[in-house]
């Protein structure tokens, strides 16, 4: 297995990463996920999301998604997120 993956040029860790980590836009509608990482490259934005209850280890539900935006449930509120934010939240 290890050898096979190495042949394809990716390590085992990377292979797992592809499966286990995805952005909100890659996630499935109607499902609840656990936030794994938030990185917007903007400290203020990260802490704003935190204050809404969107941070590592917390649940987030994808209600609907379009090509470059989505609607999520964080705690008991619904939010519309644009492309940048949808891609910055890893579940």
């Amino acid at each position: 297995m290890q050898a096979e993956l190495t042949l394809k040029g990716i390590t085992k860790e990377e292979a797992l990463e592809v499966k286990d980590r995805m952005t909100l836009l890659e996630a499935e509608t109607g499902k609840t996920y656990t936030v794994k990482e938030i990185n917007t490259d903007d400290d203020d934005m990260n802490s704003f999301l935190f204050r809404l209850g969107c941070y590592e280890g917390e649940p987030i539900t994808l209600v609907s998604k379009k090509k470059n935006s989505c609607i999520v449930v964080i705690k008991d509120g619904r939010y519309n997120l644009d492309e940048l934010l949808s891609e910055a939240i890893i579940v």
Partner: protein
Amino acid sequence: MRIAFAGNPNSGKTTMYNALTGRSEKVGNWGGVTVGTKEFKIKDEYAGGKDVTAVDLPGAYSMSPFTPEEGITSEYVRTANPDAIINIVDATNLSRSLFFTTQLLELGIPVVVALNKSDINEKEGTEIDVAKLSEKLKCPVFETTSTEGKGLSDVIGKAISLAGSSQDAPYIQADINLHDKAAVDAEDRKRYSFVNDIVAAVEKRKQLSSETTGSDKADAILTNPVAGIIIFAAVMYCVFWISQTALGPAIADWLVGWIETFQEWVAGQLENSPAIVSTILADGIVGGVGAVVGFLPLVVVMYFLIALLEDCGYMTRVSAVMDPIFKRVGLSGKSVIPVVIGTGCGIPAIMACRTIRDERERRATSMLATFIPCGAKIPVIALFAGAFFAGAGWVSTISYFLGLALIFLGALLIKWITGYKYRKSFFIMELPKWKMPSLKFAFKSMMERARAYIIKAATIILVCNLVVQLMQTYNWQFQIVEEGAENTSILASIATPFAFLLIPLGFGAWQLAAAAITGFIAKENVVGTLAVVYGLTAFIDVDELEMTGGANTVAATMGMTAVAALAYLFFNLYTPPCFAAIGAMNSEMQSKGWLWGAIGLQLGTGYTVAFLVYQTGTLMTEGHLGTGFLPGLIAVLCMAAAVYFIGKKTRAHFDEQYELHRKDGKQGAAA
């Protein structure tokens, strides 16, 4: 005694404030309606005879501000030492709201928690153990429904009785270095888990928030890039159609009848007075102000419909669907709200920009929002549509769409001038629960605006009309201007130099210039002044005008072609709004450069649009260019050149800064 109202955005603070004080401050079903502090005395029936002032604050998610209006709140509760705080908590989102509550409880000021929107919880079968919550938070908790006034006297009574005492905090942040980001984060996490434990202990939900509901399906359609925009266009079209073609004019006709009767009565009373008195009173004051008041129905019907839209929760869905488009021109989805509010009045529209986080986007939006014709411009549009285009609906429609187009073009121009490099612009907006819009609330909001409109007509517009009437009646020697020598009046001599500049736009008459100038005081003045200077007082009766045929009295008196009239209308719509709106822009922009840029852009836009409409229109209808094409072209080119050089200068400056950053990071990369 002062009691501050604090809580998350859209938790119902202003609704409660209005109920307790009897005020009618703006409310709406989205976060960020209130953008500044408001203070008023609480009604005696609630205050129990004591002198209690309620202070309404903008919504905040926490004590650390993210947008400018959130900063106002944390600053106020920290430094203004209110005697008590009423923390309004959205009971349908306890898990998020209590984060801010625990921070407020740490301040030492007595806090009373109002679990607002408890009616929705009841409907959805969510139960909150109030006694247990109160015990855990160490402060009194009451269930309330602000919209129906339920529980308010309990909350305010308790807050008054606790005022001035102290508050035990259920959770105290550890003594950490507040500059150490990791430590702050860790503390915030602890606070959230404290909150999560409380919520788990007191809240029982029948329906989980994560379940997809019917309203989610509706939201998916409304925020769909194609369907959502079509629906928005249709909704706005209906608003304009109902207010300006269907219902509005019908009521206006009826009202105008009354105004005319009144005017005749006044003229009758003045029969034996000197002619000059009767001219000033009957024609000047009653006629001019009446001309403006006659349009009131069109304006208030529109306010009523916009209030319904604001109340139901649609605005946030519109923001969400428009965000990608607005982002492309360098604005934000949040710029949509000021634009829609701007159809009512430009001042609250400019103030609503405060919820936009990015400074450049915020300033650009407040600069552009007033291109959308406001309520005060409706009389101007209706007058010209009625007099020159037989009341055609397309004049109004095109005025709004052109305004929207100018916002986009202006945004692109600002993007170019400021040398806007791609910077991350995030858009996150809470989608509140849909709510049945309250007719009572919309009616109240409408009456409030109607009152303000009438007061404005009876004060500013009345005074302006009187001044215009006097300036027109007398010459500089303070003698009454003789018939046939109208050009010697004070008004004519002041307005003529300006009129000269307007020749290339097709309306170089001093009367029109005078009306445009008084329009900067208040846009309704354009109609009032035209009524006075042309001695036309009953020209708003659309039906009557139609009877006299195409070449009706108004058009004939003004001596303008239809093309020039359209150019004049656009000039009045897209030049700077009234002084009050410019003042609002000044306080939002906090920069003289931006303010002058805004005024310059608006003047230039109004001039250019009018020039293009008049010249191409004349070419199309009469086969030749209009008068003064060359000087006008030179003026427009000069303006374009000015924009170009300002842009080049700021961009060069921007590039310099950018290069410096590059040099720091990568050696020689930019050299």
